[in-house]
């Protein structure tokens, strides 16, 4: 078997694995970035903000009703 082919294949494998590792790390960073930016008010749409506000209001109302029913 030609040793040149082995050397070339080894070089391709090593390069490919290194780049793949770099890409995986970058993807993990982009997930972190999405989580970070997604939590910033500036990047959220008005619909999303009003949805969250409605959800928070619903929770608050439930808590108030629960407290009214179960006074300490």
């Amino acid at each position, binding site marked *: 078997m030609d040793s040149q082919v082995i050397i070339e294949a080894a070089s391709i494998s090593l390069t490919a694995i290194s780049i793949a590792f770099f*890409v995986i790390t970058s993807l993990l960073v*982009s*997930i972190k970035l999405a989580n970070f930016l997604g939590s910033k008010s500036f990047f959220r749409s008005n619909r999303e903000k009003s949805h969250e506000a409605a959800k928070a209001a619903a929770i608050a109302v439930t808590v108030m009703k629960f407290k009214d029913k179960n006074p300490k």
Partner: protein
Amino acid sequence: MPELINILENMGLTHISWQESVMISVGVLFVFLAIRKNVEPYELLPIGLGIIVGNLPLTGITLFSPSSDLAQDSGIIGVIFHYGLAHWNILPPLIFLGLGAMTDFGPLISNPKTLLLGAAAQIGIFIAFWAAIMSSLIPGFEGFSIAQSAVISIIGGADGPTTIFLSGRIAPELLGITAVVAYSYMALVAIIQPPIMKLLTTRNERLIRMKPAPEISKTKKIIFPMAAMLIIILIVPQSAPLIAMFMIGNIFKESGVVPRLTSTVSNELLNLVTTLLMITIGAQLAADKIFQLETTLILALGLMALVLGTVFGVLFAKLMNIFIREKSNKINPLIGSAGVSAVPMAARISHQVGQEEDSNNYLLPHAMAPNVAGVIGSAVVAGIFVSIIS
């Protein structure tokens, strides 16, 4: 009388070889499995019909003559194969556009460590690459070139479009056979993967229930594909045809503002392209190409890559569990096998095998994360092979 002799001489019946008859039988078997057994009908039915049509003698349906003055010298499948795959190679990226519009990155964003399972399943590709290189040690076989070895190994991703894309770019002579092998293994993951998954896991591991993924906001679902597209393409520009189309389709879907485009790319366009692609690659399985040692080796090496991908995915999930201390955060190793990128078949298999042990265990959303990561992973590996080898 001469007319009658002429007609008889031009009949397919008088020209059909035993190899073509065997291939037609294989096509009929695929059709039977698709219709009667409902085994991946969207792949096996058009591939089976393509095999039957492609092996009928004297049809000229798979011919392509670019230099011929007679426009009718080329057959319909020959034209689709040449322009859709061998020359322009546009069909795989169009499939990725549709797949992107059907993909939900939510499970991956909510549980980023599952990305590693998609990466681990790609290890099979590299081992199969070396096995293909070493095939020259077989007596009487001259071996595969480095480009051919790369194409054969990518079959282990069980990702048809990526295999076709890579083959069209660096080893077009293997396009037909590698495409059919990849799609056949995609259709057969339901048979190939479960025994391996059961062999490598204990009953207790298969019973692990994973925490339901939290709801991911729309903003995060838009930012992730955008950031991933930019980063991946800046690192591996040759992966752009697949990655860009995949992410564009996904951003269409997640934006929510272009429902008609999302619907078109994930339904009409995807169905149209899949139909053309499946019939065409089925018709490429001509008898004269199949009955060779080279083809048998491609089948064996592709299977080896897929099996190893499954093995490494499951084992890596088990390895991750060693480092996860909190019991509620443990990963069910069955989702590791979904790291091979047969979407959504591999994820469905993880779910089904899990349900055999506990019918209330819903692994599908969790398995979709490594499955999507596997699609990205094999597309990136293909891009890397293109950039290094070509």
